[in-house]
């Protein structure tokens, strides 16, 4: 399964704090200088007045007032009925979609799960945007906000109250549709796919591939565009080794077997005997004593788990059960080894996989073999997924509300949607391009946007270098400026894909805390704080009167 391994959270947080600090310092500096130039000494003191007021406004907020404003927001959403239109639309769509396809009893649960989650995500997302982007501008336009701000209400409380109110509304809707979605999944997933409704808890290990000489190598690409899995040649000494850590005897009470689950790919360089599958061997190796136990031989069962087979006991679930005490052949004699006493050293265990069929290949990726810890129920994964979805919606509401503090409804909507579309579809591409741009030392074929425009107008093809001239210098400076701006922009665009936990849930995995739930939480918080500050200033430095 293509899951990232842990990235350091502390680094992320530090980076975020750094960026926030830099931006605030720059903002303060620019503000200070411009007010000094505009109003002299008095301007400067006024500026610092604004800043100190902002600090107290941002921190000394009253929960009761926020609650009052949130309640008002909720009432407004409910009474304005915009919400109901959304809800009706949602129900309509769900019903239309929920009869998708003839319910074939071989359809894997995956299809239903990702359908429900995707529908919920994509239906509530625009709702959240519309909800959060139109309320405040309407409030300002009707001047009902005037009456509010002539009460002892801080503008920061208005921002928080709005965010809280919309979040409450969207939470209620999300809860309703999630409960329906959950019931629907349980009811509609065909009986034989029901076993896929589970939250497996994988413990991944680091993977190394070793070539004939025992040196690390990257494996072979067998000509797949999709370079997830790399291949080792069968019938040779090439092997893939997983190093598992932190295996504790106490995690497997009552002499439970240790379960290894795998999902490898096979590649045949010739047809061979089609009726027998390609096979691989599994060796358990103690990383300290190097004691080695051949566990046995397994067929690859390539992609079998995609299919709702009528399974004999764990047949295509691709499970390898390792009992506490393993009997194995050493030469001619049968010996036994104790899993935790003989093989696991300080929680570490190495597993080596070799392909047995000569001239055939076995494709592996780091996530392809993992220790399957005791399973959790489907509900656990489901509600975690809903939780990350909720975080995403709160993030959207935060961004939408902030945008609406500064912009008018339609513009705020477009901005928020734009940011989301960038976040969903372009963020990865942008980061990739930028990475390439900077790793290539600022060289791009055909140049950046300004150079490209110049070439377009002057009919110059992209491989002809520009003449050395002032024009060239200007163009390149401008382009590097554009890239620098994009570089900054990548931090402003939220990575929406992080919130999508359905990839775990649909594949029968529990939603991991470290790589999904926590990052989602951090992204939401990370955006919440600056958005809150920006929203506050948007309302504060603006004359609500002047339209």
């Amino acid at each position: 399964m293509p899951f990232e391994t842990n990235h350091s959270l502390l680094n992320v947080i530090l980076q975020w704090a750094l960026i926030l600090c830099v931006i605030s310092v720059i903002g303060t500096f620019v503000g200070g200088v411009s007010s000094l130039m505009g109003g002299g000494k008095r301007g400067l003191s006024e500026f610092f007045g604004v800043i100190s007021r902002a600090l107290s406004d941002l921190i000394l907020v009253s929960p009761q007032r926020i609650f009052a404003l949130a309640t008002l927001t909720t009432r407004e959403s409910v009474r304005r009925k915009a919400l109901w239109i959304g809800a009706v639309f949602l129900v309509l769509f769900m019903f239309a979609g929920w009869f998708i396809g003839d319910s074939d009893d071989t359809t894997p649960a995956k299809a239903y799960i990702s359908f429900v989650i995707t529908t919920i995500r994509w239906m509530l997302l625009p709702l959240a945007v519309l909800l959060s982007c139109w309320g405040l501008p309407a409030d300002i336009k009707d001047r009902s906000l005037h009456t509010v701000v002539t009460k002892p209400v801080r503008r920061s409380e208005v921002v928080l109250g709005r965010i809280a109110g919309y979040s409450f509304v969207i939470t209620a809707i999300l809860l309703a549709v999630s409960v329906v979605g959950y019931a629907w999944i349980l009811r509609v997933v065909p009986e034989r796919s029901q076993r896929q409704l589970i939250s497996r808890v994988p413990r991944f290990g680091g993977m190394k591939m070793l070539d004939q000489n025992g040196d690390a190598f990257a494996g072979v690409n067998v000509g797949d565009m999709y370079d997830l899995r790399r291949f080792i040649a069968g019938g040779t000494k090439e092997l893939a080794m997983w190093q598992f850590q932190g295996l504790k005897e106490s995690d497997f009470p009552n002499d439970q077997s240790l379960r290894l689950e795998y999902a490898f790919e096979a590649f045949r360089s010739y047809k061979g005997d089609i009726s027998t599958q390609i096979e691989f061997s599994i060796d358990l190796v103690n990383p300290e004593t190097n004691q080695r136990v051949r566990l046995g031989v397994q067929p690859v069962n390539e992609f079998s788990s995609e299919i709702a087979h009528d399974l004999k006991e764990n047949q295509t679930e691709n499970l390898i059960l390792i009992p506490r005490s393993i009997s194995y052949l050493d030469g001619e004699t049968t010996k036994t080894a104790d899993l935790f006493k003989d093989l696991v050293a300080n929680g570490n265990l190495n597993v080596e996989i070799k392909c047995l069929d000569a001239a055939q290949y076995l494709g592996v990726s780091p996530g392809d073999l993992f220790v399957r810890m005791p399973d959790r129920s489907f509900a656990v994964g489901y509600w975690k997924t809903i939780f990350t979805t909720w975080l995403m919606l709160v993030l959207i509401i935060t961004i939408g509300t902030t945008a609406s503090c500064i912009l008018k409804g339609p513009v705020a909507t477009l901005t928020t949607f734009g940011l989301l579309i960038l976040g969903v579809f372009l963020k990865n591409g942008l980061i990739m391009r930028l990475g390439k741009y900077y790793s290539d030392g600022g060289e791009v074929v055909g140049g950046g946007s300004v150079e490209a425009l110049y070439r377009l107008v002057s009919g110059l093809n992209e491989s002809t270098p520009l003449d050395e001239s002032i024009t060239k210098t200007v163009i390149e400076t401008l382009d590097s400026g554009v890239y620098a701006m994009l570089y900054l922009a990548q931090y402003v665009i939220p990575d929406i894909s992080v919130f999508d936990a359905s990839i775990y849930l649909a594949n029968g995995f529990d939603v991991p805390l470290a790589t999904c739930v926590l990052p989602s939480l951090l992204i939401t918080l990370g955006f919440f704080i600056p958005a809150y500050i920006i929203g506050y200033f948007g309302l504060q430095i603006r004359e609500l009167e002047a339209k």
Partner: protein
Amino acid sequence: MVLGVSISMSAESVVEIRNLTKIYRDFWGRAKVKAVNSLSLEVKKGEIFGLLGPNGSGKTTTLKMLLGLLFPTEGEIKILGKQAHDVSKNERIGYLPEESYLYRFLNADETLDFYGRLFNMSAAVRKERKDKLIEMVGLNYARRRQLKEYSKGMTRRIGLAQALINDPELVILDEPTSGMDPLGTREVKDLILKLRDQGKTVVMCSHLLQDVQDVCDRIAILYGGELKVLGDVKDLLQSKGETQLITSKLDPAAQAEVEAVLKKHGASLHSSSSPVVNLEELFLRTIEESKARPGRRYAPGETPKV
């Protein structure tokens, strides 16, 4: 009644405006309208201060600057001893906007409850105030109806109730009687006087000059954003240089005698005062004069000649 009709000059000022100027700008930052021009004013604690002027003369703009809804282009504002942008001053202020900008999807009860919450009032206090105010503005019969169904006068009434929810020290009323029926107008006037009796300060603007004359202690007349007239209502409406006598009933002979005596010395006078012009006259005259002699402003100590 300590702070009754007559105010000593030393009473503390609740509102202080100095050299206030407001220029409305368009999107490009170009000056569009100079709505208030170098306005200086002071409102003392416990008085009812009236702000008069024709449409577009800058009354509302001035009030909004007091509340921090608009930012002055120049000049200084001190209100209840604080800056206009300080939200904590709002704890002690009640404001009735020119039109009642309220949430139309709430009913009267919910409206007052909501604004009460914004003052961090406890539920019990909110309930008590709510009941009292709704009773006071006479909306008991409609307290559960959404504001979008209210008539203009009803909306004014709930607006007024909203302004008083926090039992404010300073009440700012922008045309409080507009849209009200005669009875309502009467009630509002009584209310304003009652507020003053409770020691509160009221700043109001209105086009109903008779009402202003009835309730205000002091007035200012603005024209084109400039202060034209400022002073006690009583002083302003007195015609100096003339005396008006009111005596007991005299027979013709006595009348002749009195006249004769009056020629020599004064006699039992029942009343003697300057003839009072009404506010309408003063207002119209001020406007005419301002049109005739633009740029001439109110100077402290000056009383307009009538």
